[in-house]
Structures are given as C-alpha cells and as structure tokens.
C-alpha cells in the first residue's frame, strides 16, 4: 500500500506541473499589455505598476513563470484587483458555501441515481427500466440553469413553498438554510444522478449475471438479499471513482447554479471576477479547482485499492 501511495503521489507531480503551466499560460491570452488588461476598467496607474512588478512583466517568460510558481507554492495567488484582498483568502471564505451545496447535491444524486440504477437493472426491459432510462436521458440533457428557473417558477412563484434565491448560513438558521439550498442542490445533483444511474445499472447488470450471484440464488436466498447484499456491494466499486470525480464536477457545475439562485459561493466568485476583469481571481479559482480535482482522483484511487487490493498494480 505504501509503495502504491508513493507511486501515485509521484504521478501527481508532473500533472500539477502541467496544470500550473496551463493556468499561467491563460495570462498570455490577454490581448496587449497584461498589466493594463488585468488592472480593470479604471486602469489605475498604481495598480498597473503593482501588477507589472508583481508579475515581473519586464522579465522573460520562463523567469516570470518561475516567480509565479514560487508564489503559488507559498500559497500566494496574488491580490484581487477589485476587492483588494488576497485571492486565497477569498477562496477560503466562499468555499464552505459551495462545499455545502455540492455535498447536498451529491447526497441527492446518490439517493436518486443509485436507487434508480438498481431498480432499472433488477427490472430490466420492463416499463420501470424504460422510465429510469428516460429519467437518465432527461438528466443528461437538461441545462441546470433552465431547470433552476423552472423550479423557481413552480416552488417559489406559484406555490410559495421555497425562497426563490439567497442564502442563509446553517449556523444562523438550519431550517432556513435547508429551505434555501434544497432547490439548488436538486438542480446541481440532477445531471449527476443520471450519470450514477447509468453506471449503477450497467455494473448491476454485469454482476447480476455472474456465477456467484447465480450460486446465491441457487442456494435459495431471498432475491432482496441477493441484490442488496451480494450484487450491490461489488457493483458499487466502479461507482466510488465516479463519486469522487463527481464531487469535482459538482464544484464546477455550482458556477451556474449559484448564479441562478444568487448563492454567494465559489462559483459566483469566479463569475463576478470575470465581469470585473479580476483575472487573478479567475486564475486562482481554476488552479484551486484543478488541485481539488487531482486530489479527489487520488482519493478515488486509494478508496478503490482499499476495496479491491488487486488494483494496486
């Protein structure tokens, strides 16, 4: 296990190195003088001078990259031009809201997706299976910002059951927090539920036709025990990887959901930064998301090895 961990951690280093080159390269896409472009609409000469010094814009490109990387490795992602605060501080401040949203969405996706996948596989080629497949296609094809608007129309405008937008901290009022998060979480989790459903169905179908399940049935075990205790356990192994990577996808999907429901999270931070031309914040958010994604990938690999030691390789 230790050797696997070392090998896996070593493989992350070049990936993160290339991620850093990619994100540093984003700056080079800015037309004209990057310092003027990054200084925002005001183009305050002090800010331009600060950015020129900060990014060593008079130095050759590799030297600039070296300085930038050194800063990043020390946790310095630069300061927001607009808000005049360190980018890392802004990310840490906004992240808990998005993590709450993503975890709620993940819970909804797991409950709906895995249950629908099991039912669909057990009742293969019946109307229940067709209905589950239609649900999956619906989930994969619906833009989540449209679903959000439709749910606001139904549950906030027509029925008045839930607030249309806004966010209440769970430490202030847990009930109000759940009321404000349930619609966004469903909207965010909808597509992922569809992905989980398809994978669970396919894994369950494979496992249900295997020899050991046939043996369990031949021993006269109750079908519910066969499905839930024998088949599901093995079918869920590939879903672990999907779950970990899905959390990364949900973090990025939150950008649109937070915009629709005016939730002051990580996604809203990047959108606001884009419109304020606060490029350091955009860069910081992309770097942070990529690092989280690579870490989740590692966690998924470790979880898979713990469940199935043959995968150590």
């Amino acid at each position, binding site marked *: 296990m230790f050797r696997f961990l070392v090998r896996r951690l070593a493989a992350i280093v*070049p*990936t*993160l*190195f*290339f*991620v850093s*080159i*990619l*994100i540093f390269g*984003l*700056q080079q*896409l*800015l*037309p004209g003088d990057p310092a003027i472009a990054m200084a925002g609409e005001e183009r305050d000469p002090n800010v331009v001078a600060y950015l020129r010094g900060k990014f060593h814009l008079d130095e050759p490109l590799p030297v600039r990259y070296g300085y930038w990387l050194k800063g990043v490795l020390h946790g310095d992602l630069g300061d927001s031009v607009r808000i005049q605060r360190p980018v890392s501080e802004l990310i840490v401040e906004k992240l808990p809201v998005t993590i709450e949203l993503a975890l709620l969405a993940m819970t909804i996706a797991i409950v709906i997706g895995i249950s629908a996948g099991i039912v669909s596989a057990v009742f293969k080629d019946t109307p229940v299976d067709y209905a589950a497949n239609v649900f999956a*296609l*619906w989930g*994969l*094809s*619906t*833009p989540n*910002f*449209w679903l959000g*608007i*439709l749910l*606001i*129309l139904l549950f906030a*405008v027509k029925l008045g059951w839930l607030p249309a937008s806004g966010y209440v901290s769970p430490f202030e009022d847990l009930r109000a927090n759940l009321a404000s998060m349930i619609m966004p979480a469903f909207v965010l989790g909808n597509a992922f539920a569809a992905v989980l459903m398809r994978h669970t169905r396919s894994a369950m179908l494979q496992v249900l036709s295997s020899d050991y399940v046939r043996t369990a049935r031949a021993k006269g075990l109750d079908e519910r025990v066969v499905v839930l205790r024998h088949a599901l356990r093995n079918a869920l192994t590939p879903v672990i990887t999907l779950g970990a990577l899905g959390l*990364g*996808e949900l*973090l*990025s*999907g939150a*950008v*649109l959901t937070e*915009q*629709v429901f005016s939730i002051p999270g990580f996604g809203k931070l*990047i*959108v606001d*930064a*884009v*419109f304020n031309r606060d*490029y350091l914040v*955009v*860069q910081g*958010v*992309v770097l942070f*998301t*990529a690092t989280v*994604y*690579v870490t989740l*990938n590692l966690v998924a690999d470790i979880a898979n090895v713990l469940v199935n030691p043959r995968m150590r390789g």
Partner: protein
Amino acid sequence: MAAAIPANGIAVPRELSPWQRALRRLVRRRGAMVGLAVVVFFVVLALFAPWISPYDPLATSWSAVRKAPGAAHYFGTDEIGRDVLARVIWGARASLMAGVISVSISLAIGVPIGLAAGYIGGWLDMLISRFTDAMLACPFLILAIALAAFLGPSLANAMIAIGIAATPIFIRLTRAQVLAVKVEDYIEAARAVGNSQLRIALRHVFPNIVAPLIVQATLAIAAAVIAEASLSFLGLGQQPPAPSWGSMLNTAKNYVDQAPWMAVWPGLSIFLLVLSFNLLGDGLRDALDPRHV
C-alpha cells in the same frame, strides 16, 4: 436484400460493408432516428431562419412588452417587445454553430495530437499524455469560462474556448484507439511491404479509429451546445442584442414571475437539441460498436 444469382441458380446474399451494416443497425434504432429527425428540424430552422422567422429577432415594440403567447406572437414577447419565437428560431443558429464549430476545433487539434502520441510513442507520448491529464484536471466548464474570460466575451471566443476545453477527450480517445489498432496484423503487413510511417498512420490506422471518434463527436456536440448556452447565460458567449438561447434565459430569469414563457421556449429548445444529439450519439455507439449493446 440485394442478391447475386450465380451460375448454379442459388441466390447468395451480397456481402455488406461494415459501414453499411452499421447504417442498417442505426436505422433500426428508433431513439436514434427520432434524435436525427429533431436535429434535422433544428438545422432547417437555423438555415432558413430569415424565411421562417415571423418577425425580425431584433425588432422591439414598446406596445407589445411581455405579451403572453397568442395569435400575434405564438411564443409571446420579451421585456422589450421582441418576438420570442423569432429569437428562438435565430438562436438555433448560434447553438448549432457553436456545437459544430467547437467540436470541429477539438477534432482538428485533438485527433492529430492523439494520433502522434499513440503512433510515435516514447517521450512525445509521455509529454502529450501529461499535458492531457493537466487539461482534464480542470473541470470542463471552469476551463471554458476561464478561457472565454481571458479571450474576451463573444460567440467566436466562446466556440474557441469550448473547442479547446473539449480537446483532451479527443486526444485521449484517439491515442487509446491508435494503441489498440497499431498492434493489429494488417498494420504489421503494411509495414512489411514498405509503407512509410506517415502513410501507415493516415491510410491504415486512421480509417480504423474513425467510428469511436464519430460517436464521441456527436455526444460532444450535445455537451458543446449546453456549454455555449451556459457561457451565453453567464454573458460570455453571444452578446446582446443578437439572439442566443442562453442569453435569452439569462434575461428571462429576471421576469420569471411576470413572463414565464420567456424562459420556457429557449430552455425547451436547448433541452430538445441536446437530447436529440444524445439519442443520436447513443444510437451511433450501438450501431458502430455492437459489442457495446
């Protein structure tokens, strides 16, 4: 089925090419055919928009602000009196163009790079694979938003951003397919008769990896349509007043209590187009790779 009548008088079914067999399997899949019909419907709308559209999509009318659907405006009007149906029809152009052009960009960059990585191998493969891993580490939408932000908001830049963000999938798919194909006997035979490496890669390897690329490209168009709508919804794609389904939804969310029709039709159009490409992609996958079924 066409049959040849040999000299002994017994009809022998004509051998079909793999592509003809795939086409037959595709035609038999009802979902794929429905998907294809809807895609064709939207393509016709986009191509003939100037003749089909009942109104100018940019024409405002202060006497028809937020009118509910009716005989004069089948889909109603928006916050400045523009006809929603006209904007939905013209919006199909932006969505289809974004879907097709951005996937073409991904294919144009991803396939040659993946082919080189898989066929040449060695340090080049290692370098390309690590860079692909790095791009895949940035979630698709976040990377597209960042690229569009740095390039500047416009439909063209959104298409470039989506195309670049979707490229690593094609690099990885092409590389994997090339690695599987290049060990086949017919490639060895092509090498043995003295074909150049470039000729083997282009004439023998490439034609045998086209099928999975077609499937992936169809599914990628669906993802690109949603991505364009998402970028336009955020204000990074098609710029107002030009019609786009995403930007129409962005405006509609502010009037959802007074004019819900403003949100229903553009959203339904995105849903139908994406669903159709997904159905067609699933059908193509089943038709081109029978083992998948």
